């Protein structure tokens, strides 16, 4: 069991927006195997809660507010998340890509 002190390297930052009770983007690609920092910006005036059992995270984001979540390191795979206050509309999936696929995706986006 490791109870080591935190690694000081800053995790990569990703952004998720909530507008009209929808997540944007609804599919978010992230690298597997490393911790990420996910900033969730709520552009609706009402609160929303980011919730995911597979990610083991729940976080309330106040209306017109923002919240930061620290996620991972994740195994490659799909992780469903939803907005607890508006579960019928606020749905999304976070896809953790293995190193090679993540680098390929970054290269494709750069071109």
């Amino acid at each position, binding site marked *: 069991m490791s109870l080591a*002190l*935190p690694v000081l390297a800053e995790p990569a930052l990703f952004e998720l927006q909530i507008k009209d009770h929808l997540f944007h983007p609804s599919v978010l690609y992230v690298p597997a195997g490393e911790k990420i920092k996910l900033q969730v910006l709520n552009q609706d005036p009402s*609160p929303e809660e980011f919730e995911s059992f597979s990610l*083991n995270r729940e976080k309330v984001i106040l209306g017109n507010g923002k919240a930061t979540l620290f996620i991972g390191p994740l195994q490659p795979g799909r992780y469903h998340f939803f907005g607890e*206050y*508006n579960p019928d509309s606020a749905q999304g999936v976070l896809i953790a890509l293995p190193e090679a696929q993540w680098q390929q995706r970054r290269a494709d986006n750069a071109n």
Partner: protein
Amino acid sequence: MRFSPSLAYGVLGSLALMTSGHSLADGRVVDKVYHPYVQALERSVEYRYFYQRQADHPDNNTMGQKLGYGFSVAERAALEIYLIADRVSPEDYKLSGYELELRWMLTEQGQYSADWGLLFELERQNNQDNFEFTTGLLMEKEFGPTSLTLNALAVYEWGKTIETEWEGEFRAQYRYRLLPAVQPAIELYVGENYKGAGPSLMGVHKFDKQKQLKWELAVIMAIDNDTVDRTLRFALEYEF
């Protein structure tokens, strides 16, 4: 003030060492294992129950119930107020006291190698002018689909009919997040004249939007000769 995980580990260890003391048993040890998290806008009502059984033990047939109402007072802090009812043989069942509890989330989940929180509780026993103040560290760490939760608590008791003293309590829970509704775990409790461990099962059922019911059930067995043989622990928490 910046949060220091190394300082927190030191305090956690020091509080755990306090559990080795010996004195009169005047508090309950088997109770909820607290997670170090608080949600903004959270509100809940909570019911907790415990029952102890061993025919030839002074704590035989002891039963306790707690009814609480909790709400967040800031993005990282929540208050809960409890009514407490106990039956300690040979006395009858009675409303024995009330308690005010503050939970404070120190770090964001996943920010450091473990997540940290603080607990403060003040309990007053009815008609006896006895008080109990509890404070300590709450820690949780993820290991893949499992979570280890530790509570290291210091308890100060004073009043008319109890000895003024410091005690230590340590609670641990190792949980497998199998499904939202079914999460098996094992729990360990160490405190004044009590050392026990056993299996537990917990889960959450969502009704609508933020309305959900959390449940916990544990059977804790003695792991030394001084501890009452069996303790049943049960809790229901409705969040809305």
